[in-house]
């Protein structure tokens, strides 16, 4: 019986591997690996471009993650890009902690000359932590951005992410609502503001309960 199950499982696995989608997924993964390898070699622009190209071969949700990385690299000041690239490499290799640490250290090293760059790195770190299910760390990083980088372009994303977590955990609801109100008032045209309004409404309902 056990044997039969193993055979069936093996056949299914083989069928999956041989299927076009699986083939594409494997090819996409290879492309990602290749892109990360290029980044690891310090060829940042090529690596970023490779990430974008790899994204085209992945399912949409996976592609979004890669594109996020590429966009972060593009948006950062040239001086900050190696740090981000290193973090990407580390995260890809499973060292999410080290990756986030590297990013946070870079921010704390106070060599972030361009305004908003620190926030971008912290949000990037928070996203990496999130993918590794390090929710507390992620929340802490978002909190840093919300509290300390109000003027940055990453602030709305951080506010929304933090508020949703607080809503889910049903804590600091008032504070979250205040942050969302600030976001709606200060960045009324940001793409995330319509979602922020919904979250605010839910927060207020939760507070009312």
């Amino acid at each position, binding site marked *: 019986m056990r044997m039969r199950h193993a055979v069936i499982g093996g056949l299914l696995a083989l069928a999956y591997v041989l299927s076009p989608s699986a083939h594409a997924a494997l090819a996409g993964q290879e492309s990602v690996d290749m892109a990360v390898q290029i980044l690891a070699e310090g060829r940042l622009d090529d690596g970023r471009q490779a990430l974008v190209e790899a994204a085209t071969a992945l399912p949409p949700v996976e592609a*979004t993650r890669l594109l996020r990385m590429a966009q972060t690299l593009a948006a950062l000041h040239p001086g900050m890009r190696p740090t981000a690239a290193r973090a990407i490499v580390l995260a890809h290799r499973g060292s999410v902690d080290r990756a986030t640490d590297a990013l946070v250290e870079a921010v704390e090293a106070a060599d972030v000359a361009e305004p908003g760059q620190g926030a971008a790195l912290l949000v990037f770190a928070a996203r990496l932590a999130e993918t590794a299910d390090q929710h507390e760390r992620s929340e802490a990083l978002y909190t840093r951005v919300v509290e300390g980088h109000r003027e940055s372009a990453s602030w709305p994303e951080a506010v929304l992410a933090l508020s949703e977590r607080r809503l889910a955990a049903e804590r600091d609801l008032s504070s979250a609502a205040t942050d969302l109100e600030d976001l709606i008032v200060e960045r009324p045209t*940001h793409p995330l503001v319509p*979602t922020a309004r919904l979250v605010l409404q839910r927060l207020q309902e939760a507070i009312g309960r």
Partner: protein
Amino acid sequence: MSPAPRAVSRIVDTVRGYVNSRARLGLAAWVAAAVAVVLALAWILVGSEGWRAGTPLPLLLDLLIVLALVQAWRELASRRERWLAERLVSRSVERAAGLPRGTVLESLELERAVPKGTSAGLANLAVQQTAAGLTGSPSHLAGQSGRLAEGWARSGLKALAVTAPLTLLALGLAPERAAQAWAGLLRPVQLLAGEVLPPLEVMPGSVEVARGTPVEIDVVAVGREEVTLHWRAVGDVPRSRVGAVENEQARFPFPSVDVAMDYWAQAPDGAVSDVFTLAPADPLLVTDVQVSLTFPPHTGRTAEEYRGVVPRLAIPFGTRLRIVGRASRPLGSAGLEEAGGGTSARFDVSGPSFGGDWTPRRSALYEWTFLDARGERPGVVPAPLDVVLVPDAFPSLRVLYPARDTVIPITRRQPLVVDVRDDYGLDRLEVEAFRGDGPERTVQPLSLGGVPAAIARPLLDLSQWSLVPGDSVLYRVRLIDNSPAGQTTQSDVHILRVPTVSDLRRDAQAELEDAVRRLEELADRARQEAEGARPTDASNRAGDPMEFGDREQARTSLDRQREMSREVEELSAELERLAAAMQDGGLADQDLQKDLQELQELLNEMNSDDLVQQMQDLEESLSEEDARRAMEELRQMMENQEEFRQMLEESLERFRRAAVEQDFRATREEAEELARRERALAEALREQDNPELRNRQQAALEAEAETLQQRMERLQDNLGELGEQVAQRSAQEASTSTEQARQSMREASEAQSGEQAGERAEQAADQLQQAAEALEQAQDRMAEELTKQVQAALQQTAEGALALAERQAELRDQMRGATREEMADLRSDQAAVTEGARNMSRNLEEGLRFSPMDAPGVSELIDDAQAESERTAEALGRRGSNPSPAASADRTVHALNRLAMSAMNAADQVAQASAQQQAGGEQSQEQMDQLAEQQADLMNQSAQMMPMQLSQQAMAQQMQQMAQGQQAVASDLGEMSNDPGGEQSMADMEAMAQEAQAIAELLAGGRLDRETLERQERLFHRLLEAGRSLEREEDEESEERQSEAPGEFERGQISPLTDADLGRARFPLPSAAFLARLTPGERRLVLQYFERLNRPPGEIR
């Protein structure tokens, strides 16, 4: 023997008596009838005046009566004798009584005497028996005799019955006349024997008297004591008045004679005057004078006519007057005489009419002379004719635009606006242009078609002349009228200066600023239109006719939108012309050309295909009067209008920026040019070759520096308005440097030594160069900031798209296995994603608002992502939706990812383009344009240096620099000709390179003259043309051209030229001085306004 008793005799006597009475009655009747006839005759003969003295008629009539009586008596006697004869009577009685014949006669004889032998008794008995047989009335017994007598009596009575009524009628009709007539019969002898007095004399007899004037009628009545004046006015009853005769004359005054009146006098003795007439006469009046004017043919004036009051006649010399008129009475003569003597005119007379032709030869007051048939002058004559003969004046002209020395447009075609007038008509206008120092001379005629006044718009076309910047062309306008002599007037000589590159730059700036103003106006109108009435709710059904108000509203909206679209098209076309003209004129500024091209594209995008199609559809709907369809089309067009308005607003910002950028470039270039000339002057100042000239040149440059500084200050303000603080600070620094340069220039002017002056001038040149560099840096910073702004906008778009993609991914996870209620909740989350995509679109538009760059495809991808998100929301609301909500969410994520990639790619491209621009990487066409720009710059330098009259050494130094520049152009051209991949013909490149080399050698040899300048310009145009050829080749490569079969075309109807086409104007333009004070845009508006005013009424809408 005694006779028998007289019984029969009595009876016969009785009968006789009866017959006798009848006879007498007849006599009386006949006499009465005769008298009645005579009385009637008397009534007739007497007339209305009665019997005249000495007339025998009454006597004759009386005799007639007597004769009638005599005759009647004789007739009676005769008849009585017959009727009363005894035999007849006896026989009549016998017959009446039925007695035997002779019975009565025998009885009568017996009664008179009984014959002897006859018994008396028997006789008596016989008489008795006869008497007894005579029974009956006398009338019965009268028998035949009685009947005759009665017949006579009846005849008389009948005659009387006929005549008596006539007499009574006469009596009744005119009792007085009857009395006079019959009274005369009673005194015939008196009348016959009466004294015959002289006839009555009446004065003034039959005459005409002035109507309404008093008249006295005198009657000379010798021998009478009184006289009666009778008169009968027209329309009145006859009247009479008795007047006493004093001194043999009676006077009858009449206070007023208003109508014709017959009158006569009568004296009591029956004397009657003739009947005279008093006719009221009006004064001699000359009425209905008509003066027709026939003007000389060359005046082109149509004939005129005056009737009644003739005003002062200001008429061209040679005008013929045809005069006709009519008087109230027949005329003897008619004419005109110059007041105070002199010429006169006589007219033909026919009855009361007069007329004739007359051509006055002198200006004068001409008085009318009339005489009637009796030689009397009229009481009233028409007012004198005031004739002013106007000689053919010389035509007049006024050059309204440009009206003073000015700069010729870069097209080398100078439009002129000339107000031309003549008293009669204009034949043609000629614009003569010539160069003071050149062989060119041209006369360009413009036919005016004989109009008396016009706003002529000749175009002085000098495009075929070889003009270089700084050249001057003289021109004047000559005007010839249409008189046989062809009288001519000409304007002053004006100067057209060929613009320098600096002028062109400012022209371009002015055109852009004008475009901004026009766009602002359009934006206002579009805003008002958007705020205007919206279509009413379409409760109509298909095919329903439109309400009038709805149709008018729709038509108005359509017309307005068309007008706005047309203006946008016009503006776009003007920009295209401007770009070409700038290049032709020598301003090969690539930045400007790019700006103009981009602005043009922006304008073209406004009139989207959708909008154009929408307008056509609406027009068709309105024609078909389908209310529902029209309202729907109108609604859709308004949506497109909203898009049009938004694009207009966005374009406006871009135009403003382009105008300021052009100002920036022009100011910087001017600063550089000024620095260059100041440096050249510095060298000349050191040499002290001509101190007076140099001082003048220094003062001129200082004045230019002042102007430049003012422009910099204005630029600062404009930059401030755009929010370009960094650039504004740079402009301020440049202004400060320029101020310092001016100070140095002043010091140079006041310096004691040439060396010192040169140093100061050199210092000023450096400061101006600093100003130019500051501006250049600021300009670069602006461009850099703009690039960053675009990059940031694109990156934000990418960030936003990815954030939304993540959000969408989360929603997708939640959709899986969600209940219906949860699905419903997720719809609002999905709607938030859609709204976020909309925000992203708005943010991108805002970020690219000022940018000349575009992000091709990004906007479309945002729309795609938005549409996918909407589809996902729809899938959430449908049970069993295919694709499922999760699958649809996947597609939304994919769309957002594609958007992010596109935005990242666009941001990269922007960065690369910026880097490439900084590095100088160019394509062949761009290289060629760059070379053209360099050549234009060299040409400009030559044009600036040539008139400076620098010393040999200073000029040599400057020319060395120019030669190096020219040499660089030659080298680049040589390199391009050697480029194996070059598109341009090798031979062309080589030829241009050789020409550039030749010019460089000329410059190096110190030769800078007109010929050199012209060669430079020709080379510039060849480079320009080469660039265009390359551009065309690139376009041809990039576009796959497909030939199309020619479609049908409509043959336009060629209308005859209208007054407006000929430039005739009812409302003259404002003065030249006024127009000159306006900006080009304002001037255009004013000219358009007057053109609209002067359009024919049918075209005014």
